[in-house]
Each structure stands twice: as C-alpha cells, then as structure tokens.
C-alpha cells in the first residue's frame, strides 16, 4: 500500500490497517446513532412526562369510582366505568379474533401451497387490512354491523325499539376484531414458522395424521406466539378510539355496561373528551394525566409482555435459520 496517499484520494487509500481517524465513518455512525437516540428520547419524554404528572393523582379512589355527570371535577371523578367498558369490549373482541386469526395462520403455514396465487391474495389482504385507517373501520362498523346486520336483526326479531340497530358494545368489539385480525395472524404465523420441521416430520412418521400433528404437537409449541398475538391485539385495540366512535362508545353512562347491546364508556375516548371538551383545562389537567396513565399502564404493560415474548420467539427462529 502506498502510505503517501492522502486519505481523500479515493477508495485505494484504505489499507488492511485501519486509517488513523476515519471522519466520514464517524460522521455516518454519529448521525444514524443520533437519529436513534432522538427517537428513544421522544419515547422517554412522553412516558416520563405522563408518569410523573399522573402518578401523584392516581389513587384507588380514582380507579374505583363511578363519576357523576360532571366528570371534569377532580374531587369526585373516577374511571371505573371506562376501565370496565374498555376491558369488556376488548374481551369480547378476543373471543372473535383469536380463533379466526389462529386458524388463518394455521392455513397459511401448514396447508397453503406457497406459490399459489390464492395464498398470495390472502397475504395481500392481511397486509391490506393492517393498513386500513382506523376511522374507515369505524365507518365500516356503522355501515355494516349497525345499519345492515343490526337493523335487519331488529326487523327479524320484531323489536319495537331498536336494540341491535344502534351503537352497541358487540358492534364495537366486532369492528375491533376485524381491525386486529392481521395482528393475530402475523404473530401466530411467526411462531408457527419457528417450530422445527423435524417435529412435524417426526410426528407424521409415527403415524399421526396432519390434523393430529397440528393439534397435539404444533399448537402447544406455538402457544407463546399465539399469546403474543392476542396480547398485541388487545393492547392495540384497548387504545383505539376512532373505530368505536360511531359503533358503541358513549359520552356518559350512569351505570356500567352489562350486556352486549349496551353502550359503554371508554378510557381512550374519555382522554379525548377530557382534553378537548373541558371547560377549564387547567383544572382538568391532573385527572387527565391520571386517566392517560391508567390507559398507558393497561396498553403498555400488555405490549411490553408481548414484545418480550416475541423477542424470544425471534431469537429461536434465528437460531434455527
């Protein structure tokens, strides 16, 4: 190597021994590292801001109280009906979304011929569903579940008053189930792919049928991944507001929701109401922070667990590949 060459003269200058100080390398790593740091800082600022401002206001009384009509008053308000409403709608959603999502994922990994156009279309539809704006899901829920299924159901049952042809918890849950379907499918598929082929082959070689193999060997192995999918779907759905705006959420309800045709109050929607409809934002600020903290604890704790499980599944997958 020609030691006299200046560093700027081209690619040739780099020998086997590293240059004394590679400025462009330093700049590049520095800039990309800085971008990463900025993103992490944004995350940290949001979380810490909410944690510090919300923690002092959070109390058992706040969590367990059903507020009266004026829920902007810090002394008497609470978030019990919102916690119940959010939990209820998310729970009903999982009943629908998990079986459908898991079965679709089983089809895609275990049965679907990899090259067929149909498989490709199913995958494209899943990806597409993941990208439909949440407000469009809300419109879909209103147009399909309430105005089409609900109204026809009312006509069929001869209900004198609309029972199903109006916003209801069931419709909100179903709308969210459609929205979170891709989340469950993708997570389940990932975990199914992580299961070694040898396991399937061994089971089949021992005389088990394909279905037996799936039910008794594959699914138990894939359980962590399916749980991840479920948890991710729950945490995504718990924080979504736009899809339930027209399909079931209520501004105020005096009692807790107890059947599927009830409307419900919701944590995310309550955050929206508190921050935009408050007559005096300075007085509402503490309870607003506390409500946001409750919502975050709910969605974030779930998310955190899911990400931990997923990291483990991915590591397993990489070890196999």
């Amino acid at each position: 190597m020609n030691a006299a060459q200046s560093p700027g003269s081209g690619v040739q200058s780099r020998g086997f021994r590293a240059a004394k100080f590679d400025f462009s390398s330093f700049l590049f790593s520095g800039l990309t590292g800085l971008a990463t740091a900025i993103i992490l800082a944004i995350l940290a600022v949001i979380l810490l801001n909410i944690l510090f401002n919300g923690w002092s206001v959070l109390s058992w009384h706040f969590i367990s109280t059903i507020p009266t009509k004026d829920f902007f008053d810090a002394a008497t308000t609470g978030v019990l009906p919102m916690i119940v409403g959010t939990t209820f709608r998310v729970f009903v959603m999982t009943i629908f979304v998990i079986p459908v999502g898991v079965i679709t994922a089983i089809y895609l990994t275990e049965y679907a011929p990899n090259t067929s156009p149909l498989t490709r279309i199913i995958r494209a539809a899943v990806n597409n569903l993941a990208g439909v704006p949440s407000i469009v899901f809300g419109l879909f829920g209103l147009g399909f579940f309430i105005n089409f299924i609900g109204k026809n159901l009312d006509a069929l049952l001869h209900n004198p008053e609309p029972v199903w042809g109006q916003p209801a918890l069931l419709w909100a849950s179903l709308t969210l189930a459609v929205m979170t379907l891709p989340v469950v499918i993708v997570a389940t598929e990932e975990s199914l792919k992580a299961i070694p082929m040898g396991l399937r082959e061994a089971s089949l070689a021992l005389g088990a049928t394909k279905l037996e193999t799936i039910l008794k060997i594959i699914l138990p192995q894939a359980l962590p991944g399916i749980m991840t999918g479920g948890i991710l779907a729950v945490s995504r759905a718990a924080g979504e507001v736009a899809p339930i705006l027209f399909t079931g959420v209520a501004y105020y309800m005096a009692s807790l929701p107890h059947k599927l045709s009830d409307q419900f109050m919701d944590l995310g929607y309550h955050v929206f109401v508190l921050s935009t409809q408050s007559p005096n934002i300075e007085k509402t600020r503490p309870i607003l922070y506390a409500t946001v903290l409750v919502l975050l604890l709910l969605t974030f704790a779930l998310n955190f667990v899911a990400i931990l499980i997923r990291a483990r599944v991915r590591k397993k997958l990489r070890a196999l590949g």
Partner: protein
Amino acid sequence: MGIHRGHRARPVEWLVEKFIFLVSLSAILMVLLIFLFVAREALPIFLGTIDSALVQDAIPVAQMDKLSPAQLREYLGLTDKQLKEMDRETLRSLMEVRVEGQAEITSEFRNDPDARINTTQWRHLLLPHQWTDYDKPEFIWQPVGQIHKYNFVPLIIGSLKTTLIGLLFAVPLAVAAAIYVSQLARPRLRETIKPAIELLSGIPSVVVGFFALLVMASVLQSIFGYETRLNAFVAGIALGFAVIPIVFSISEDALTSVPQSYTHAALALGASRWQTAWQVVLPAAIPGVFAAVVLGFGRAIGETMIVLMVCSASVMSWSIFDSARSITTTIAAEMAEAVSGGHHYRILFMLGALLFAVTFAANMSADVIIHRLKHRLEGKR
C-alpha cells in the same frame, strides 16, 4: 410448508381442512366487505341521485294523483322498495311535510341562488364556487346552517399538509435509526433498541394527541414563535411519532433481509462498515425503504385522533403554521351530527371511501414492492 397432505380417506379430517381453508378466506372477505359497505353508503353521491338543495319545488298535495309512481319516487327521494312498502296515507303525509317544510324557508334564503344548488354534485365537491357574499370563487367546506357547502379540496389539502410534515419529520429519523440498528449497532444494543422503538407504536394515538395538545404545542410555539398555537405543524410532528415505528420496522426488516454474503463481500474488499451500509446494503434494500415510506404515508393520512385533537379548523391554506382539517378529522367530528341516510352522512362516507381507496393503493403497492424485493434478495423461493 413442505409436508404433503396425508390420508384423504378420513372424512372428519377432510371436513376440518375445508373449514380451516374457509376461515382463512376471512381476511379477503373483510377487505371486500369494508369496500362494499363504505361504498354502499356513499353510492347516491357517486350516482348523483341525492339533492341537497335547500329550496326545491313543492307540488301541492292535491296533485298527488297526477304524478306517475316514478315521478313520485323521484320527488320524495325514495327507493323503489320504500315506495312499494308505503301506503297512500304515508305518501300523502310525506308530501304534506315537504310542502310545509318548503313554506317555512324564510325569504332570505328563498331569494338566495345558493339555496337552489345541489351541493353534492361533483363540480361543487371539487371546483371552487362563488357563494353569495363572497367576492371570488372559493373552496369551502362548511356543512352547517341552511346551505351545506361540501368542497373536498380544503380537506384534501389539510390531510396532505399534516401528512407531509409528518413524513418529512419521521422518515429521515426512522430510516437513519433503521440503518444504525441493523448495520452498525452491536447485537446486544440492537436487542434493546429494537423493542424500545417498537414500544413507541404501542402508545395509543389518543395519548400522542393528548401529549401534542397539552405539552408539545406550547413548547413548539415558544421555539418557533408562530401565532396559532394549534396548527398543522404541531399535528404533523405528532403524526410523525405515530409514523416512526412503522417506517423503522419495515426498513429495518428490508435492510436485515439483505443477504450476509453482500456484507461479507464488501467488507472483504476493504470497505468500512459505513461504506458497506451506505453503498451496498442500503441500495440493495432501497425498494423496501421506499415501501416503508409508502406505508408510513398510508398510516399518516389515515390517522384520526391525533389531528382531531390538535387542530380541526377548516381553513384553505398551504401555510404549515395555519390550522388544518384533515379528511379523517372531518369524518370523526361530523358523523355524530349527520342524519343517518342524509346527504351529510353520505358525503362523509364518500370521504371514507376516498380514504380507503388511497390507503388501499398505498398498501398494495408497498406489498408488491416488498414481495419483489424479498424475491430478488432470497433468490427463487
């Protein structure tokens, strides 16, 4: 996967397999249903069969028998099915309501040419119009009062404005972070940073909106010193927070899927790590990064709660420091007051259909790009 199907002779197994197949079609079915039912509610606007004009001709009830069923149907704005189900008395009372309704309109509107315009026509949705009391043709979205003005252009501009600001803010950060995490960071560091950035996508958009409204808006205002506290700029930056995780994940995925042999070859030829990342890995993965940006665009233009909470005044302006009302915001804010089946309701569904079409195109193109890229990088599969 590779194993071929076993015993065809088992009927139960066969049935279950068919069932699994049918269920797996649900994703396709759902996309079709979404399209069908959003478009169905917006159909009268497409077909131009709805009339939102305030002042319409009123036919005296006495002349009811002179009208043919088709004329009657059109006059009352009914569907064929509705017309058949109604008896004579109902139709008569509908006509009475129409006559009374028209009689109640004050002379102020009766003499206003605007009141005779069907504002749901295409040219009023997309082109500027000179309304009474305005001195030049303008694009106006104002679905309140007696004459509902439904011009889409301010909303489209509002959506584009916030989305572009969000992308300009998010894409450089997210792509740079993806390069850092996938190419430069040590494995241990990577395992910590990646989940942390993914955690950002776990923050509900209503919380991002809340944060932007209560904290960020004031901070940004004190930095940039603009007049309107809540404007498209704040909304755009907040949108960026929601877009970062998606752009990051997809580009990181694309960068990681570039085969190790590329990197090894580049390093063996004497390139430094950053040269490898910048000149070998990034060009190979660039379609994936582009797809990530397209998906980020779809996410940003469809985001509702953030823009709804931060700014919502409908102003026709390209300035980023003015307020903006996006398409999503409009749907979310106005659906509650729109009468089910009325023209406002249908217009909002029309906006939803537009949004669905845009995101559908974005998702599909991103899907195709990523598919081709993986195909190329992994060889035939």
